[in-house]
């Protein structure tokens, strides 16, 4: 679990991610991603496959086994990269309190 605090100084890495969500990431962007992607299980963003290799709906992992995965039905993607960018924005706002207008 990363305890790195994302700040305004990391903004260039957000730009980098939006340009190339699948990497390879620079060391600075990787540090941001390490923080974002090591959330605890409960409430962690995942993609729910609607049509294999074609369409996904964003979802949230539940805290325990046996509990259904929550679907966020208004967040449907037919582009994996756009899904990555959307989750990055959501996490950026949750971790910094600032909306990422990219």
């Amino acid at each position, binding site marked *: 679990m990363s305890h790195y605090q994302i700040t305004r100084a990391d903004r260039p890495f957000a730009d980098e991610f939006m340009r190339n969500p699948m990497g390879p990431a620079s060391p600075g962007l990787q540090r941001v991603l390490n923080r974002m*992607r090591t959330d605890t299980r409960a409430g962690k963003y995942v*993609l729910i496959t609607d049509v*294999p*290799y074609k369409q996904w709906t964003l979802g949230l992992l*539940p805290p325990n086994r046996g509990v259904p995965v929550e679907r966020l039905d208004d967040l449907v993607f037919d582009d994996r990269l756009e899904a990555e960018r959307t989750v990055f924005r959501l996490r950026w706002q949750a971790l910094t309190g600032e909306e990422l207008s990219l």
Partner: protein
Amino acid sequence: MSAGDLLGYLDRWSVHPGDTISCRVSGTAGDPYQANLVRTIQGDTNPDGPGYRQEHIPLDLGGPFMAQQQTIETGSFAIVDHAEVLAVDNAVSIVATIWPTTPQRGRQTLFSRMNEDASTGIELFIDKSGALTAECRLDGTIVTVSTGCTLLSQCWYRVAVSHDAIRGQLHVIQEPVKLHPAISDRGYGVAITPVGTSPFDIRAPLLMAASPPNDSNDRYHYNGRIYNPYVLSRILVDSIPDRPTVGDHLVAAWDFSIEIPSQRIVDVSGNGLHGRLVNLPTRAVAGPDWDGSCHVWTHDATHYGAIHFHDDDLYDANWQESFRVDIPANLASGVYAVRLERGRDTFHMPFCVRAPRARRDSDVVFLLPTASYMAYGNNRIGLDVPETELVCGRLIELTDQDIFMQTHPELGLCFYDLHNDGSPVYYASRLRPMMDFQPGFIGKLGGAGSNVWQFNADTHITGWFDAIDTSFDVVTDEDLHNEGVDCLNDYRVLVTGSHPEYYSASMRDALDDFIERGGRMMYLGGNGFYWRVSPHPELPGVIECRKSEDGIRAAAPGPGEYYASFTGEYTGLWRRNGRPPNTLVGVGMVAQGFDRSSPYIRSEASNDPRLSFMFEGIETDIIGDYGLSGGGAAGIELDAANVELGTPHHALIVASSSGHSDLYLVTPEDMLDPVPGLGGSEAENISADIVFFETSAGGAVFSVGSIAWAGSMAWNNYDNAIAQLTYNVLNRFLNNTPFNITPSSSKTEILP
């Protein structure tokens, strides 16, 4: 493929023509479903791949069938079936030493003996507050008493319930084995019960770690260890003796250090009240007497007199047979599946058909890595492990099968999961529906692209055989373990799967023998031959692995618990057992990462005349900069040559990969001293090697050292340099001309 409530499993994963296979199916009761036999050729459904292919086998399996709803009961327990001898007149005490692991997880039964309608009997359990509680039922009158003291997790306690029918008293006692300063965890309670009747004066079995079946469908399974349980026909009021003494009103005493590999618990009181275990609780675990002086339970089992029960243990789903399939005598060897269908819902139950007994139909044998399929079976890597997204470098994709597994945890666990109490999973069984052992399944760790894993990734190889119009026989890991090298006799070339990670000693011996006899082996994967596993010598379909000391693992075994309960073997890395993968195939695991795969670059040594057969039709030095598993041929899990770990001195490193991302990290066993620079962009040993060497009996070994290799073979409909190189090797290996091991003038390149 879908994930509804139509699913099933087979009693075996390998048959000969003429054999019969038993199918156990569950679905919505009364719903009709159809069953067909299909041959699996290529299971990757990625539109960029070569296309999903299976062949329908025209065989009437007897359907349509009417579905029967069958359930799975997880949770291990012990049962003493014939407990009638537990006549204790007017006094009874049940005593044990326990190590609870989830005392705050709700009611959990330690001991239960109840008559059929649960009106009379006695139970000792942990209540919802985590305190030890006793309950006595006498003709429907229920008396409960608790110590009121919460048990600490992972601490040993002596516990007892005692009933005095003459005085009409129920006692409960809770004593920590070691004092915990400032913690009130020693407790005692007493309650009044009707006089003159004993709750033990019934005909009923005695259960440990669960209650009998009841209307609530909750058997209150216990998480934790029980050690040295016994029954006395006398009262214990406020203290518990350390040890039971024969003659001191001893009625039964179970010594769990006896017959550890078995599913029997032995009563040493002399009254013959032996019992049995259900759903494989973990044996050969440390008891309160373990003091670090013994690490091998076969040397001194008295240190290992505890059993660890889990509410999510599962050995055999125990479903009733739904129908049988008689395998036609003329069916060619291959990878098949019984496909269940109801409307658009399908569920596949794959298995291997071998060549007829004492016959070979091909010079090539494909070794289906079923031990590794079991090790990963129904893994919850995408559901339970938040770090999976981090190591993959992208969001986790959950499929219908994952969603189903999330709400059906009763499908059971594997070596990549943790039990509900956080302890490692040591046993993996195939006697249950396997959601991920199906063609079409999308994995988690298979790299960007197709993201296939284990079985479905291996269909990239079976699809390649079809693409090059080459017949092959199939043998499974289980066959190899049971029959040894005999099941490989007369095959010239053995081809592995993409990730044959788990090997028993018998399996490893068989492959060593195959090589020593001049067999040719094509290891088309990565991180192979890594963990030592122990199949149970008697129980079918279950293997054990304790990931001792190091290696990449979900959890570490407890101290002193590195030896398999099934066999007494040390089941850590094969490297720790003195037989690194390098000694078999010339390469061994060095790193993993799950984002992008890389190409290989040919070495100077690839121009050696010994390899003149290998590069025909291949003109570039960079090979495999494409693929369905991460976009390159070298990726996911990487193996490299290392002469210090047993790579033969005359081995040639044909090509090596480079340019891996920092999501690739070295293995723990190679990271003796953590220092910066252990990622793919800096660590020089993060590289996959293609290795070739001849053997003294005229055979040879070709290893690619990468899980992603097969995904590149399948790229562009199997028309590419990786597929060509693999074909060139197969073609030469099928040629009966012996390989010569005469020294070459070229330099052998072995990485440090």
